[in-house]
């Protein structure tokens, strides 16, 4: 478990460390969903690098022991069905015990099927009805500006979610009111619930739409941690709303889930989970080896 992070960091984080964390979060996601036997693997997995970089790359100020600390930054998972990745990150960061992940979606659990403000520490807004997180985040960003605070507000949305009109209300409003601490990220994994976004209701070019609403926009590979980190570094520097379009793969990291939208909202069986975990552990071993080699290389 990483220690409770109190401060943002200015320097570029250790990418290898982030990669390891990312793999751990993927493992947690699979284990949680295998246990709960319901939930959304595809959109949890596609957001892993983004969430990892945010929580462990020094972009969010938080104190896991004081989740309601006034000066914390706010991260809102507007695509609430992806919440397993956030619970995994919150466990990794020490907001909740790691064991608690196994209570996901069970009665009396703090780990609700979609994020609920006030139940699980570290959750900043109740979401799950798509399209609402950007508005809530905008309120927070403007409240911080009003109080002269430097609180960052970061909202993660899905590509399908961007079909909701409320997203464009909030986007227009943010482009106009121009809070200097407001970042939107789209987990552009090309699928929504019933199929490919481009076939149901194409949202491309997403960047163009945010630009038309007067945002700063960058488009990146949302699984390349270096790109994610550098895009976030760019975004936090902006004095106007910044949007990162992260091109991702739904189900990323588990071969049989990648780009297979069957896995939008179906949990893996025990056997499937075992296969997925084997794959993920192999990835972890490989990357540990590469890291070792790279460190040797660097040490020479």
């Amino acid at each position, binding site marked *: 478990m990483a220690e409770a992070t109190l401060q943002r960091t200015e320097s570029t984080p250790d990418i290898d460390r982030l990669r390891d964390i990312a793999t751990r979060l993927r493992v947690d996601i699979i284990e949680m969903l295998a246990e709960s036997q319901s939930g959304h693997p595809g959109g949890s997995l596609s957001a892993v690098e983004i969430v990892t970089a945010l929580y462990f790359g020094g972009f969010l100020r938080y104190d896991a022991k004081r989740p309601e600390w*006034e000066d914390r930054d706010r991260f809102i998972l507007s695509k609430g069905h992806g919440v397993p990745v956030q619970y995994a990150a919150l466990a990794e960061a020490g907001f909740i015990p790691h064991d608690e992940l196994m209570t996901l979606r069970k009665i009396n659990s703090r780990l609700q099927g979609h994020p*609920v*403000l*006030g139940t699980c520490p570290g959750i*900043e*807004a*109740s*979401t*799950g*009805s798509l399209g*609402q*997180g*950007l*508005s*809530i*985040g*905008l*309120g*927070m*960003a*403007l*409240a*911080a500006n*009003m*109080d002269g605070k430097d609180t960052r*507000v970061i909202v993660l949305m899905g590509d399908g979610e961007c079909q909701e*009109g*409320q997203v464009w*209300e*909030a986007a*227009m*409003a943010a482009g106009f*009111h121009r809070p200097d601490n407001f970042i939107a990220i789209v987990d552009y994994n090309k699928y929504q619930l019933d199929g490919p976004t481009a076939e149901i209701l194409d949202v491309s070019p997403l960047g163009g739409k945010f630009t038309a609403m007067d945002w700063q926009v960058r488009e990146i590979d949302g699984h390349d941690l270096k790109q994610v980190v550098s895009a976030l570094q760019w975004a936090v520097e902006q004095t106007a709303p910044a949007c990162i379009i992260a091109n991702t793969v739904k189900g990323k990291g588990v071969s049989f889930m990648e780009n297979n939208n069957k896995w939008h909202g179906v949990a893996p069986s025990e056997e499937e989970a075992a296969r997925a975990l084997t794959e993920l552990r192999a990835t972890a071993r490989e990357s540990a080896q590469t890291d070792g080699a790279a460190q040797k290389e660097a040490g020479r």
Partner: protein
Amino acid sequence: MKDLYPGFTIGKATRDAFGETLKQLGAEHENIVVLDADLAKSTKTADFGEAYPDRFKNVGIQEANMVGMAGGFASSGKVTFIASFASFVVGKGFDQLKMAVAYPKLNVKVAGSHGGISLGEDGVSQMSTEDFALMCSLPGFVVCCPCDENQMRAATRAAYDHDGPVYLRLGRQKAPIVYDAPIKDFAFSKATRLREGTDVTIIANGMMTAAALVACDRLAGEGISVRVVDMPTMKPLDDDEVQAAGEETGAIVCAEEHFIHGGLGARVAQAAARLAPVPMQFVGVDDVYAESGDPEALFRKYGLTSDDIINATRRVLEKRGAGRA
């Protein structure tokens, strides 16, 4: 509309009293933020906006976004008032009110102006005869429709003081004065017995409270002793007052500027059925959309006058008579 309320002084519209009070509250409390959705002149939040421009945002014609933003402001520690027409903020922001306000129990105070049909000429698209039904469907919300300027002033202050979400319905028209002095002891959940009586109880709120008083006086002339209860708050409901009405007067008439479904009458009927079942009649808009027109003419056409209350009272007494016979 003053012909509907003979003998009453006509005071300010409740939206005016709301606007004034909101501005005063702004002076008293730094932590208030106010949002409006391009109806600030109509909802009267503009007064606050002029006085405290830094704590006011007219967000434009985006009711859903406004509700979401309010959730963000409130969870950042601001007591957040938002306003629009009842029809728009409730009807276009319902799921947002659920997710961003009610479910997390945040400190958002929703002002739905131009409630009911008394806004008149603008017609149905601007009217709300369903806001009580919808707002009472949001657990944790206090839902209140004050009847005159003094009660609105008290309710607006109570909304600030209450820790949690509150809905206030504001009216467009000048309202007859029911409380002729500032109300000191206002509390949500406490109804007010305006007239004592033994044969029947009329429970009303908003513009219908004055009409109930008119009806009471006229029925007194016929020898019918009417209790009148002003019940602005539909949630939480003053169950005790409903029980007393049932037990002590044996018949209840509810009157509201709202559909008969889902509002004051529905809530009183459920409470009475649990606590003291008695014959009831309901005065309200009977499941139709109204239309454009002069407010007084609309009240007559859609059954919101003291005559309608009187007729309903006669019906309920007949019904009870038949039951007793």
